[in-house]
């Protein structure tokens, strides 16, 4: 599903390889220098994908083609790696992200209820983004903040000791802002 979204998304962007659109966009220069630093070695694929995602927020299909060409790898390999790892996203994320930790410690302290409440309020399932692009709701395997379980990551910031109410307030706030 993620791949088809990425495909649909990519049709909106210029179909030419990113190289043609390089001018003025510093992000491509940074990506290029990362690949150069690794001497365009195929072994550096994961590092390069990390950099690309950091720069662009997600990995669109043209980006994968560009990286495949640069590292002299078949596109299938690049696509295979990008879809194997949970970290890489082929679809754009929402303006805000809310990651609910589903690790064991959070789970035994009620993370499942927190998640279903957040899903109910946002009207989406975990792993997707609200239609207005305001919020992406995600789950994590374990963020290692077990001492302060149940934990969530809101826009990159770890917050512990969550309840259905406390996270619900946050989600409600975003939803009402988003629709305005």
């Amino acid at each position: 599903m993620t791949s088809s979204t990425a495909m649909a998304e990519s049709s909106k962007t210029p179909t030419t390889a990113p190289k043609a659109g390089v001018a003025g966009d510093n992000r491509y220069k940074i990506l290029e220098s990362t690949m150069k630093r690794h001497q365009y070695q195929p072994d550096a694929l994961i590092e390069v994908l990390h950099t690309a995602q950091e720069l662009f927020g997600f990995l669109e299909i043209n980006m994968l083609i560009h990286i495949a060409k640069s590292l002299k790898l078949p596109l299938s390999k690049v696509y295979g790696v990008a879809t194997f790892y949970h970290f890489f996203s082929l679809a754009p994320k929402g303006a805000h992200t809310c990651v609910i930790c589903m690790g064991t410690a959070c789970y035994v302290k009620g993370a499942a209820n927190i998640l279903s409440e957040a899903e109910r309020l946002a009207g989406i399932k975990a792993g997707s983004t609200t239609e207005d692009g305001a919020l992406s709701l995600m789950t994590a395997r374990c963020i290692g903040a077990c001492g302060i379980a149940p934990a969530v990551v809101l826009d990159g910031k770890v917050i512990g000791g969550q309840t259905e109410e406390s996270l619900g307030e946050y989600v409600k706030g975003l939803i009402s802002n988003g629709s305005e």
Partner: protein
Amino acid sequence: MDLNELIEIKEKERNSAKPIKLRCCLAAGCISSGGQSIKENLELAVKAAGMEDQVEVIGVGCMGLCSEGPLVQVDPDGILYEKVKPEDAPSIVAALKGDEADIKKGDIHHPFFTKQVPIVLENSGKVDPEKIETYIASDGYFALQKALNEMKPATVVDEVTKSGLRGRGGAGYPTGLKWGMVAKTQAERKYVVCNADEGDPGAFMDRSVLESDPHRVLEGMAIAGYAVGASQGYVYVRGEYPLAISRLQTAIRQARKYGLLGSGIFETSFDFRVDLRIGAGAFVCGEETALMASIEGRRGTPRPRPPFPAESGLWHSPTLINNVETFANIPVIIRKGAEWFSSIGTERSKGTKVFALAGKVKNTGLIEVPMGTPLRVIVEEMAGGVPGGGKVKAVQTGGPSGGCIPYSKLDTPVDYESLSQIGSIMGSGGMIVMDDTNNMVDVARFFMEFCMDESCGKCIPCRAGTVQIYRILTKIREGHGTEKDIMKLQDLCEMVKTCSLCGLGQSAPNPVLSTLRYYREEYMEFIKRNVSLNGNGHKTK
């Protein structure tokens, strides 16, 4: 860099220390609740009180008691302030002059602290993880110096073998034996890899060590590199740990600047470089062959062993792979000797183990205890039992590869053999306590869902088996199960356990098998409910 210079840095750092230290925990848990602004406010308050010549504010790593964070410790008074708020800073500073601060104080004589034997965590909460000098002041890099200048590579391997250290990643393979194998293998290039892909949910020991004392791991790796004849090291660290990554990067940069990593270390011919490789969120990459595939930029799928990484690992070269905690034990073994180390622990499990305490207990956080400490001491005395006086039902160790230990087995000592005898494993050190409100069929299903999602899909027993086990568990949970399903479940678990390619599949059934062993009545309850509702369970789907 030579020994004299190292001593000079140590002396300089020790002499420049101010008499009073305010240590602020800046590990991930405390940072998430405002640790950074507490540190800044303390600095301002010290300045405002004009006490800069006597008091220094230090950002340190994990102090262990995460549930009471953010923590601030006063040295040498030993006062531990808990749940500190940024606005508490002036009263903490005023208290240094004799005023009484109205902030919750921790009991540092509680078993949580007194029963610990810090070896791996000896510097955690004491040194500034972003300042190499503070690590050197705590005898850091002296072990590397000793190994390079006073010991032969084979002597280092011998010392590690004699110490009895076993792999802290979970399997408990003797570390010295592994080092010896890599050292013996002849090759032009060899590698040392630190497995910091701490994937078990509920485990955060490695994160904490990397955030609190990253140089210790680097020093351990460099000693390993010298012992086995490798000049390149990789730390494979989870992408989910941004703070650990940034502190490791800082540590590598500082060590390189001092010539403690790089070429000609301590003016010998020994070269050792360390590079980071960031994981991308795949649990299976904790398995060593999958981890190596990932370092090589490929999908993280495991391959059959042999050949073991010691013979053919990264880019087909002999590779030594150890866990973070294993490497963190090395400097102190070299510094204090194998004999000292092997005097701690039990006959077959030497040293200490770091555990991440979480779940339904009063004190959650990180502890380090000698091997052989009974689970009861950890759960009831140190962790303080279930808050509100509830009853401990089970202790889960080893994450998705481990099992649930029932209350009746709480007197079991923590060592590799005892834990596997009762159907669990030592694992990497996650310890999650469950109480009566946790249903064990749900717990088994939770772990199976995890393994099902994380199965890489390469071998069929794991790929298809975990899905089928999950389906049966769901069926039972929803009240449609029969006794036949329990039999099927058991058979499937045995099949997945014996036929899977790697550790993920081989151990995935453990949570189900251990809950079937100790909590079968909870499975039966769901089944009985089905029979009483439908008359005959076989009719329902």
